[in-house]
């Protein structure tokens, strides 16, 4: 796998990443059903164009923070699908050695500063990392992904303020998929998300989040703005969550949107939109390459070892300090 964005930002490269994320998520759902991935996942299905387009605008040394629905961002930044799946399956070969799982799987060597399970909580972390890069004399930028639900977290708004005041080279990418778990965005967000950014003097744009090239074009501008020292900006990418908030819904079936709504949301598919822009023969070749890659990734994950229970407190402290055991003398 390449280091940095998973593929070049040409039509075929963007297609490749959207397709990789799509098939990765579908294979991961199969592994959830098979009991190989325990606890389920938050599928990124339908939102692939956002991660693919946004990360294609980044350099390898640029930084990313991700979310509970984070597989797409991590893959788009260039992460190895095999080690990613191994992490989802809790194996020692995963990026986090099986300590993080689906919601935290991240390869720090690619500038991915973690995927965060608390909505909005990674936003200040991205801003701080971006600021630190500038302090160290680098022109790298950070990109903070978060959802429409996070737009209601105070820490996100506090971070907008700090980032604007200090001209931090961070790009806020809000993926508005219409739902915060089961709550509709219009029921949860007063005013607008773009309006919240502009209130802090942060340039903000809405973007067609179902079109990887549209996201890429907007992200290129936002990244250039940050790299030039002009401070943060925000992209509100309107997208659709094709599947469940979490695979738990596949059995629990909470009713918060109708089947017709889901079907309507799926009509315009970001993978198909990008696939239509490249020759069918090339598309077929990419599809076949991805299937082979994921076959190997699934095999790797399934065959990788489980961690030794005796190592449960490993890595608790960066300096190797061992905590007292929970039992015995």
């Amino acid at each position: 796998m390449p280091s940095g964005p998973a593929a070049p930002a040409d039509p075929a490269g963007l297609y490749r990443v959207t397709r990789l994320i799509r098939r990765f998520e579908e294979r991961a759902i199969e592994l959830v059903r098979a009991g190989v991935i325990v606890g389920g996942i938050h599928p990124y299905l339908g939102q692939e164009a956002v991660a693919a387009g946004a990360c294609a605008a980044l350099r390898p040394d640029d930084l990313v923070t991700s979310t509970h629905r984070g597989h797409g961002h991590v893959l788009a930044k260039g992460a190895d699908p095999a080690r990613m799946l191994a992490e989802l399956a809790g194996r020692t070969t995963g990026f986090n050695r099986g300590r993080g799982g689906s919601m935290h799987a991240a390869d720090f060597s690619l500038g991915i500063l973690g995927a965060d399970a608390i909505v909005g909580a990674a936003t200040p972390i991205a801003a701080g990392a971006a600021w630190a890069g500038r302090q160290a004399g680098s022109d790298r930028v950070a990109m903070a992904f978060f959802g429409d639900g996070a737009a209601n977290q105070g820490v996100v708004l506090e971070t907008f303020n700090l980032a604007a005041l200090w001209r931090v080279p961070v790009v806020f990418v809000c993926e508005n998929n219409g739902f915060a778990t089961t709550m509709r965005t219009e029921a949860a967000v007063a005013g607008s998300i773009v309006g919240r950014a502009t209130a802090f003097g942060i340039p903000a744009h809405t973007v067609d989040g179902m079109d990887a090239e549209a996201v890429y074009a907007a992200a290129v501008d936002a990244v250039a703005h940050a790299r030039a020292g002009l401070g943060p900006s925000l992209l509100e990418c309107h997208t659709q969550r094709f599947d469940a908030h979490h695979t738990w819904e596949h059995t629990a079936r909470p009713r918060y949107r109708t089947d017709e709504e889901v079907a309507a949301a799926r009509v315009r598919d970001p993978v198909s939109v990008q696939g239509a822009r490249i020759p069918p023969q090339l598309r077929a070749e990419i599809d076949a390459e991805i299937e082979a890659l994921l076959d190997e990734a699934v095999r790797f994950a399934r065959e990788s070892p489980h961690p030794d229970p005796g190592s449960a407190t490993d890595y608790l402290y960066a300096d190797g300090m061992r905590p007292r055991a929970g039992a015995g003398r």
Partner: protein
Amino acid sequence: MTRLSYLKALNLALGDEMERDEAVCLFGEDVGVGITNVTAGLLKRFGAQRVLDTPISEQAFTGFATGAALAGRRPVVEYQIPALLFLAFEQIANQAHKFSLMTGGQARVPVTYLVPNSGSREGWAVQHADHPYSLFAHVGVKTVVPATPADAYGLLVSAIRDDDPVVLFGPSGALGLRDDVDPAGLVPVPLGTARIHRPGTDVTVVAVGHLVQDALAVAGEFAAGGAEGAGRAISVEVFDPRTIYPFDWTALAASLDRTGRLVVLDDSNRTGGVGAEILATAAERMHLVARPERVTRPDGAVLPFARALDLAMQPNRDQLRAAIRRTVGLGRDTADDALPQLRVEEAVL
């Protein structure tokens, strides 16, 4: 020798570490002016790129420091009021603390959270009077509570150099302390090492932070045959853990091997406070010849404003004297049980 105050020691440590390591930077409210005096002069010396006055946004600047640490800085974050830690608790306990394990060792978060004026400050009360070091120890964040100027210097230096998040509480009751200190002798104090301020053979008093001074005073009384020791001198060892987590259990075991008796003087709420952990561990694993005692804040303490009420909530010397007497068999003393008990039948109604 110079007279060094606790506050000045913290200030010196910050300045020395910022001088030594370009990666050390400072975030907090009013740190430029140095409203707590801890950061006085640092803005002028190191500039606005390393000393950052923050808006009143504790969650954001705490998370910002985590990100800066992940990207190679060593931030120090100052909080003027201990209760502000509650606002930032998610960013410390759930983010900074968990990054190392949840990334399988890929990440380290070398941030120091600096809390001068922790505990009760006369006339501030209620929402400015918390002393939540036990809360951070419970979570597993490295937690230090220096008692003296030299230890304030040495522990802050070690906290900044540590690769994990560390919280340093500077009790308001200790900030005014001054000691004769040789400036050349100011050295890092390793985390997790206790200090015995006064050796003794009858009772070990584990005292935290500003309470070390109370323990020393009471130990002096008992040594002279006072504090109603019935004329008999009682030899009290004053044990200062300095680091609450990780606690120096080895040193405590050695102390109890000498004395066999334990009293903990701890400015935490009683339930789940570090005093409870010290008693439990001593009971499980250490040499005790008498029932251990602890003197703490009451359960669920909220410190009222009126001075008499504020003081009634804090551990005091009378309670300590009584606890020491009980451990050496000088009888049950109820002076420390003066707080009214909640009557259950009234509470139910």
